Each structure stands twice: as structure tokens, then as C-alpha cells.
């Protein structure tokens, strides 16, 4: 009875989501966001951590409205279609640590899966190693899933549990309006603003917010997920979500060509380094953490918007992970991996393997 699946759940729906992101991410770059970083959930949550002073890396501090829009757009869609369901309690603390580890891995590569696609669509060949790592990480995750790994059931709970992260995002937006950026000043009220570097580059607030809201709405309805795209392909030979990823990549490539933003190569690519092994390994760690947590960073934001308190904790884990990454020299820079990035990736893998091996339900 395919008619029961709405347009948004159809292949055309998921392709629409990919095309929309593929158009507006490069446009956000044109409007001021950093190169090959029209949207990057990991980088933007890292910038939010910076704006709040959870780390003091001066070049990556900005309260990114796109992230706020993702959560609130998803909240609107969920309420409009009667899909808001407050739920929590599925190995919450594990999800927090997976969020931390996912961010550590993503910041060794310098991007989330969305940015890996956008970097490739902008001509950055280093993204190939990141995407390969992502796929390998997710593949390892599917091995755990096949052997019984799961984080257990969540419980329906009070609506307020599902509202906490969306309310936090409202608070972030309010802070931006009360303490707007003052040219030439690093701090406005309680918020930090970068004066140079990627954190200083951003599209106008309401353009970023509008695009974020629209993507949040579309992605909640279509269940767009870059990790799920590869996982479902590996696990079930099912390509539904994968169509969204392909649509994003192809569209962003075309738009970059049209806007003159396609610069192929490996050297001196924007906000990227060319240490291939660590581009690969960083993203493999992130991919494994996403697979164990059941969603890419974007998807976790959309889930948090529709009431999933466990996804909200993963998001908070990522923001805290960004703080740790920059405070302890784990994050990479265009010069290469940070002083402690390599041991952090190795320890991150060990922790993920510990979680994967020990949280397997013995069935039958």
C-alpha cells in the first residue's frame, strides 16, 4: 500500500531534501559562510561552543543560526504533522560520549558528513579520504548492529523533556539578538565573536536562520540522514536515504560550478589539511560513533527537534566535544592535525569498540 507513504517519505521527497541542501549550502557560502562550509553541523556546533566560551579558539566563535534553524524547523514540522513525541532514556550517557567522540573525529577531519560532501562538491580531493573513512566507520558500526548491538528502548515522557533543546535554541537566538556582533569587538555581552578566520565569516543572520528553518522542516519530514544513507545500503541493500546524499552532492557540485566556487585540488583547500591518513581515520571514528548512536549530526538535531531527548544529549555531547577538542589540542587546522589529535582518535576508537562490544543484546 505505497500510497500510505506520503510524498516526503517517497524517493522524490528525499531527493528534494538533498537538492535543497545542495542549492542553499553553496549559496550560504556566496552570502558569507566559509568556503566549502555552507553548512557543516560539526563545524557550526564547534563555532557555537566558541561563541559560548566553552573553548577560546579565537577563529571559530559564532552562534550559527543554521543550527538553531535546524532544530526549530524540525520542531515546527513535527507539530504541524502531529509527529512530536517526547521520548528519552535509551542509554543516554552513552549517547553523550558518542557525541563527544563523533565531534573529536569530525574535527580531526575538519567537517561532518555534510561538509565532506560539500568539500568534494567544491573540488577538495581530501574529502575523498574523509568519505572513505566515514563509510568504513559506518561499516564497522553495521557489524556491531548485526551482532546484536543496540542502545535499548526509550520511554515516552513529559513534553517538556522534548522541548528542552528547542528552548535552548530559542535562548541562543535571543542571545544573538540581545548581544549582536559589534564590528571590531571580540565580545558582545556574553557572546564571543571571531574577528578573523572561519568564525568571522557568515551569511546575514536572517538568511542563515531562514535556510536553517527550511532545511530543518524538510529534513524532519524526509528523515534525511547521511549516516543512515550508507548504513542502510550496507545493512539492507536499501538505497532510499542514499538518493538524498547523491542529490546533495550533484546539486552542490553544479551550483559551485555556476557560482565559480569549484576549485579542484588537494593543496591549500579552504579550512582543510591534506594528511590523508588522519582525514580518513578522523572520519572513520566519527562514522562509527554516528552509526552506534543511530544518526549523523544533522539527523540528531532533527530528532531533537521532534522530541527525542536522547538525540538532544548527543548534540550536547558534540558541543562539549568541540570544547574539549580545542582546549586540549585535538582539533586539526589547515596546518595539519592538532598536537594530541592522533592519540585522541585512537582512544576514541577504543571507547567506541568498548561500547560496541559490551552493549550487544544476546538474542535467541
Amino acid at each position, binding site marked *: *500500500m505505497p500510497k500510505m*507513504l506520503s510524498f516526503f517519505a517517497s524517493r522524490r521527497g528525499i531527493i528534494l531534501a538533498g537538492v535543497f541542501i545542495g542549492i542553499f549550502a553553496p549559496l550560504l557560502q556566496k552570502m558569507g559562510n566559509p568556503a566549502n562550509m555552507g553548512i557543516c553541523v560539526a563545524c557550526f556546533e564547534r563555532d557555537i561552543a566558541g561563541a559560548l566560551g566553552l573553548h577560546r579558539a579565537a577563529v571559530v566563535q559564532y552562534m550559527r543560526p543554521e543550527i538553531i534553524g535546524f532544530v526549530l524547523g524540525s520542531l515546527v514540522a513535527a507539530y504541524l504533522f502531529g509527529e512530536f513525541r517526547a521520548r528519552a532514556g535509551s542509554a543516554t550517557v552513552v549517547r553523550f560520549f558518542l557525541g563527544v567522540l563523533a565531534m573529536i573525529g569530525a574535527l580531526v577531519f575538519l567537517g561532518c558528513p555534510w561538509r565532506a560532501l560539500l568539500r568534494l562538491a567544491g573540488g577538495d580531493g581530501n574529502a575523498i579520504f574523509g568519505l572513505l573513512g566515514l563509510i568504513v566507520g559506518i561499516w564497522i558500526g553495521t557489524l556491531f548492529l548485526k551482532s546484536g548491538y543496540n542502545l535499548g528502548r526509550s520511554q*515516552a515522557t513529559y513534553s517538556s523533556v522534548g522541548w528542552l533543546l528547542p528552548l535552548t535554541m530559542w535562548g541562543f537566538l535571543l542571545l544573538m539578538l540581545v548581544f549582536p556582533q559589534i564590528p571590531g569587538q571580540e565580545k558582545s555581552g556574553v557572546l564571543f565573536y571571531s574577528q578573523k578566520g572561519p568564525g568571522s565569516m557568515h551569511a546575514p543572520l536572517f538568511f542563515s536562520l531562514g535556510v536553517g528553518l527550511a532545511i530543518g522542516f524538510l529534513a524532519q519530514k524526509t*528523515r534525511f*540522514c547521511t549516516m*543512515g544513507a550508507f548504513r542502510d545500503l550496507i545493512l539492507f541493500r536499501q538505497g*532510499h536515504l542514499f538518493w538524498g546524499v547523491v542529490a546533495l552532492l550533484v546539486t552542490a557540485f553544479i551550483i559551485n560550478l555556476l557560482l565559480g566556487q569549484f576549485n579542484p585540488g588537494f593543496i591549500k583547500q579552504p579550512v582543510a589539511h591534506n594528511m590523508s591518513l588522519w582525514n580518513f581515520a578522523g572520519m572513520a571514528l566519527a562514522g562509527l560513533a554516528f552509526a552506534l548512536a543511530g544518526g549523523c549530526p544533522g539527523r540528531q538535531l532533527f530528532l531533537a527537534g521532534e522530541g527525542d531527548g*536522547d538525540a538532544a544529549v548527543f548534540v550536547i555531547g558534540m558541543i562539549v566535544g568541540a570544547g574539549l577538542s580545542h582546549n586540549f589540542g585535538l582539533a586539526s587546522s589547515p596546518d595539519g592535525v592538532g598536537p594530541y589529535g592522533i592519540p585522541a582518535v585512537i582512544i576514541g576508537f577504543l571507547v567506541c569498540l568498548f561500547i560496541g562490544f559490551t552493549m550487544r543484546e544476546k538474542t535467541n
Partner: protein
Amino acid sequence: MSRLVDARGLSCPQPVMLTLKEIKSLPGGEVIVLVDTDTSKENVCRAAQSQGWQVKAIDPEGKGYRITLHK
């Protein structure tokens, strides 16, 4: 006699994995799947249809859905 898969409270990809495990062990018949999110409802229907099973009915149950699959 229909089989029951209780996937309530489980997140992706568990509902699909449990459903596929059940329907792949059966030559045909009826399988009831309980889910509590719209995402799981869509994913379970899509997976079952890909295996040649029909979605006979989707009924609200509690805060979720009761999906009846048939082959």
C-alpha cells in the same frame, strides 16, 4: 496466527532489523509490528514492501502504530 514484533521505543535501524528478521523466517502469513514513531512506521513499511510483503493496515495504537503486514 500472526506473529508480533514489538519495536516500540527502539530507534533506527532496530525496527527494520527486527521486522526483516521476522518476515525472512516466514514463507508468508501475517506479521504485526508495533512502532511508536512515524519514521519507524515508514521504514518498516518500506522494508516489508521491498521483501514482497504487503502493508495490509496501519492503525493507531496508544501513542504509536500497529502495522499489519501480509504475504
